[in-house]
């Protein structure tokens, strides 16, 4: 992309993108919510375009062309499966369709795909508010994409060339040259600065071989990894939370990193090592950074330097005015098109190598939280696998994640992996994730899955994560079971679980008319139906103080799963490992249910179990609903779970005797039982590292108990945060402000899909967002509250559990009627 921009825009930079300004987004294989570009920023901006409500009846329309089902594809309004070799052709086609409208000359090539013409029409209509992105590393493809964006007037609106980003600046060609030089013994000495090419470069194996021949090899890093172990010297670096640092993530945006803990081990910051090795007198890196900032950024004036420095630290960022940079497109599109035609020949079976949303490129693979975080799409944990379309999977039933192993061979390099049958995958395509097959990452990651980096090849001067000449051999005699946190893929047409509509239906009132509102017949007369909440037998309680509630927007939830990790860390949730996930005993308090659509009717209960070939996807974060009429509370024999006067469903671990009745009676199945002792137990020492060693225990949140064996646990709405918020407010003799108390999941949510707050406070964001009103107008503080937000609904409303969590229905921006 750098090279493409250099050639076609005249600047070797990667611009910032502003998805929030885009009305029409077309992505060709760019997984921009998960692994492409500034994913968090992208997600936030994308989320802004997906919000719908009264007063905002527009949302972006997102077309997606890709081979494997990715997180971004799952969020798209129109998703078209293509083969990886067709990516270039799809871009050419799009280029030509738009060039026709723009009056530019067209290029040769291109391929007809469903929704492509429609996408081109809408891009053209939304000129200046449109964005096209492509995931390929190929210069030629990116030149064409730049050409399209240029025709759409995206530069300056949705693409910001004046704000180049400074990461992902790697040069594949230069690295390949280095690798060849090492092999050819042309390198005398090398320092690996916190990197691990032996593992994560396609030629890592050759590097490992030839490292021996280098006279001086040094590696820095806070862990001994594949590369470090092979070097002569390993210079232990501080962990990044132990060290000072600064950064310029985006041109003219400077940031400081401040240590949060004194170094635990006898380590030295790598930068300090460099200062020492280069013979500098000043070897204190902190002073070095400070001096640098003094000389570069401090301009004197009314503050002394210390004040300036403190302010920068406090703000976390120091900005300098950007130089206005506009670009003009002058790329050679026809050359790019012909390069595409030569480089991409369709194969019978094509391979996509991708970074998944959990362990990513593998550098953090040794973090058990990430290993146990289910992949947002496949819901597999602790494993690497090859995704195969149901058509290609043949006779694999995938019943309870039972599958077969397969060997994938590319350029005589092969890896053996279990088969994951993945709806939405383009037939004739297989996908393998990076980040697994670590050998020296640590006790957590070592030996999990296989390393896919060796399968990556160089195409047109950059690393290509697709391959065409792939041999795929299924081993019918080798059984394997994947660990999945969810094995039923569809929601069986259950409208009280998932409600969705199209933007059109939402805006023209069809949704309001047809929204699923459960009713019950009464004895009074035929067809007399009432809302089940009116049938309550008892007088409701009134929560005079706070009434905590949550709103979860299915539309802005992208399924990224950051909330799950945040919850795990905040609440000391145990990690249980692959075997226990196979036993379906993961402990996560918050999960994201991922449902595919089915082609069958909702009343065809057998057919509805099967996902469509190219399914619509909906993500539903599911956690304790804090029901006001909680089924779990009634059945506990020892009253270990009761309701607070602020609407919380409380769990007294100390009182719990572990009958599991509450979990059985929970319609949402969000309660988690401590099947074993997960802390201080050798059995879980390798997976649940934070509860089994003294070092690991430093990770635990001191405000939250580590639960013992045999007790039930579940989401508490981060009651420790609520209590501490209330306490500090009380100490300051004031009332709690809205937003002062935020649950870990809501804090982690990039798009704000999770909103937490006090429903009794009419000024709170949640009260306004949901338009909360008491069910009984004469009791303003009643526990039973309704939402007048049109999209709001309670999951399983008809069983009348009266949850404190409201979901906002999913809206798809699609012309066809609701699927």
């Amino acid at each position, binding site marked *: 992309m750098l090279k493409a921009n250099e050639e076609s825009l005249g600047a070797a930079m990667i611009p910032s993108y502003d998805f929030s300004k885009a009305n029409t987004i077309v992505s060709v294989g760019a997984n921009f919510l998960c692994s492409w570009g500034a994913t968090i920023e992208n997600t936030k901006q994308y989320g802004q375009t997906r919000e719908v409500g009264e007063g905002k009846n527009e949302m972006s329309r997102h077309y997606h062309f890709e081979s494997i089902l990715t997180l971004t594809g799952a969020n798209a309004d129109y998703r078209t499966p293509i083969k990886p070799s067709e990516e270039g052709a799809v871009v050419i086609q799009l280029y030509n369709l738009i060039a026709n409208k723009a009056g530019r000359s067209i290029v040769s090539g291109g391929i007809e795909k469903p929704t492509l013409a429609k996408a081109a029409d809408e891009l053209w209509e939304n000129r200046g508010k449109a964005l096209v992105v492509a995931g390929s590393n190929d210069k030629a493809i990116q030149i064409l994409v730049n050409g399209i964006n240029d025709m759409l007037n995206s530069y300056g609106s949705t693409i910001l060339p004046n704000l180049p980003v400074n990461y992902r600046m790697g040069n594949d060609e230069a690295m390949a040259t280095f690798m060849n030089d090492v092999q050819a013994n042309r390198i005398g000495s090398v320092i690996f600065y916190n990197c691990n090419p032996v593992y994560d470069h396609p030629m890592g194996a050759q590097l490992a071989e030839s490292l021996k021949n280098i006279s001086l090899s040094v590696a820095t890093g806070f862990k001994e990894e594949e590369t470090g172990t092979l070097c002569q010297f390993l210079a232990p670096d501080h962990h990044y939370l132990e060290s000072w640092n600064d950064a310029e993530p985006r041109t003219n945006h400077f940031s400081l990193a401040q240590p949060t803990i004194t170094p635990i081990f006898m380590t030295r910051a790598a930068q300090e090592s460099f200062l020492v090795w280069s013979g500098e007198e000043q070897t204190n890196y902190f002073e070095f950074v400070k001096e640098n900032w003094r000389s570069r950024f401090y301009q004197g004036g009314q503050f002394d330097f210390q004040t300036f420095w403190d302010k920068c630290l406090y703000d976390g960022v120091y900005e300098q005015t950007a130089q206005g940079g506009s670009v003009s497109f002058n790329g050679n599109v026809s050359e790019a098109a012909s390069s595409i035609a030569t480089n991409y020949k369709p194969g019978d079976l094509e391979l996509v190598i991708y970074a998944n949303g959990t362990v990513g490129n593998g550098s953090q693979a040794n973090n058990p939280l990430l290993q146990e975080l289910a992949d947002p799409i496949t819901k597999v944990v602790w494993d690497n696998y090859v995704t195969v379309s149901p058509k290609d999977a043949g006779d694999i039933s995938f019943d309870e994640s039972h599958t077969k192993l397969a060997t994938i061979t590319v350029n005589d390099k092969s890896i053996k992996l279990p088969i994951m049958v993945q709806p939405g995958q383009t037939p004739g395509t297989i996908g393998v994730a990076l980040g697994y097959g670590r050998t020296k990452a640590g006790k957590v990651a070592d030996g999990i899955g296989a390393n896919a980096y060796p399968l990556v090849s160089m195409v047109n001067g950059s690393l290509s994560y697709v391959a065409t000449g792939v041999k795929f051999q299924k081993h019918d005699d080798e059984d394997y079971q994947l660990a999945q946190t969810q094995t039923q893929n569809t929601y069986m047409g259950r409208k009280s679980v998932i409600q969705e509509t199209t933007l059109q239906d939402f805006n023209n009132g069809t949704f309001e008319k047809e929204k699923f509102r459960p009713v019950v017949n009464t004895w009074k007369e035929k067809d007399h139906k009432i809302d089940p909440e009116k049938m309550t037998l*008892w007088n409701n309680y009134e929560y005079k103080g706070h009434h905590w509630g949550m709103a979860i927007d299915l539309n802005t939830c992208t399924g990224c799963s950051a909330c799950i990790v945040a919850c795990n860390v905040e609440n000391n949730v145990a990690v249980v490992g692959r075997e226990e996930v196979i036993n379906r005993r993961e402990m996560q308090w918050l999960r994201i249910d991922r449902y595919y659509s089915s082609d069958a009717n909702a009343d065809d209960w057998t057919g509805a179990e099967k996902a469509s070939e190219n399914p619509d996807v909906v993500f539903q974060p599911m956690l304790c609903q804090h029901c006001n009429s909680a089924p779990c*509370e*009634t059945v506990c024999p020892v009253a270990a779970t*009761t309701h607070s*006067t602020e609407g919380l469903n409380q769990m007294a671990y100390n009182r719990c005797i572990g009958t599991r009745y509450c979990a059985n009676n929970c319609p949402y199945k969000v309660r988690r039982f401590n099947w074993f002792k997960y802390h201080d137990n050798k059995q879980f020492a390798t997976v649940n590292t934070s509860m089994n060693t003294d070092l690991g225990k430093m990770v635990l949140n001191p405000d939250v108990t580590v639960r013992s064996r045999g007790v039930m646990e579940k989401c508490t709405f981060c009651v420790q945060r609520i209590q501490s918020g209330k306490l500090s407010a009380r100490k300051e003799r004031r009332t709690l402000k809205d937003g002062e108390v935020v649950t870990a999941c809501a804090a982690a949510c990039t798009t704000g899909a999770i909103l937490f707050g006090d429903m009794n406070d009419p000024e709170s964001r949640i009260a306004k967002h949901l338009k909360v009103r008491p069910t009984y107008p004469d009791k303003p503080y009643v526990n039973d509250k309704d939402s007048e937000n049109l999209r709001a609904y309670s999951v399983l409303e008809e069983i009348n559990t009266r949850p404190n969590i409201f979901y906002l229905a999913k809206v798809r921006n699609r012309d066809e009627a609701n699927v």
Partner: protein
Amino acid sequence: MASNKNFLVGVFEDEDVLVNAVRIVRSKGVRIHEVFTPFPVHGLDEVLGYTRSRLPIAAFLFGLTGTSLALLMQYWMLGFDWPMIIGGKPHAALPPFIPVTFEFTVLLSALGMVATFLIVSDMKPYGKPRQFDVRSTDDKLVMAIDLDVNKTQNRTAITQLLRDAGASEVNEKVFA
């Protein structure tokens, strides 16, 4: 209780004969100490002139105690001592308290009645009972007549009476 107690023990083989014999013996003015049988003989209590047992009343009273205790306990514990919001339901309500109340009623009623029975019948797992004939729990039906109570009657006359009434044997039994 220094003096010895003297008994005449009539042994019978058949319950109908025994019932008849009780009638005969009582009609002659002889007071029967007790009749021992290996199985319950119906009608025997009537001919012996026993009044109905009051154990059912005891059972009822114990049951009533159980009902009140259980209800009091539940209302006090959940309604007054430490009220909690459980499932959004009232702190204390009658319907969910019924099962425990019922069980407690039955428990107290049964245990109380049996305890009363054991006490009034002087049954205990220690000590040796006064047995008039060890076969009375096997196949013989035994009528015991306290000679000290029937002082006006002649011992041989009673023996003869018993024999006439159908006793297969008549023995003497002396308890210290």
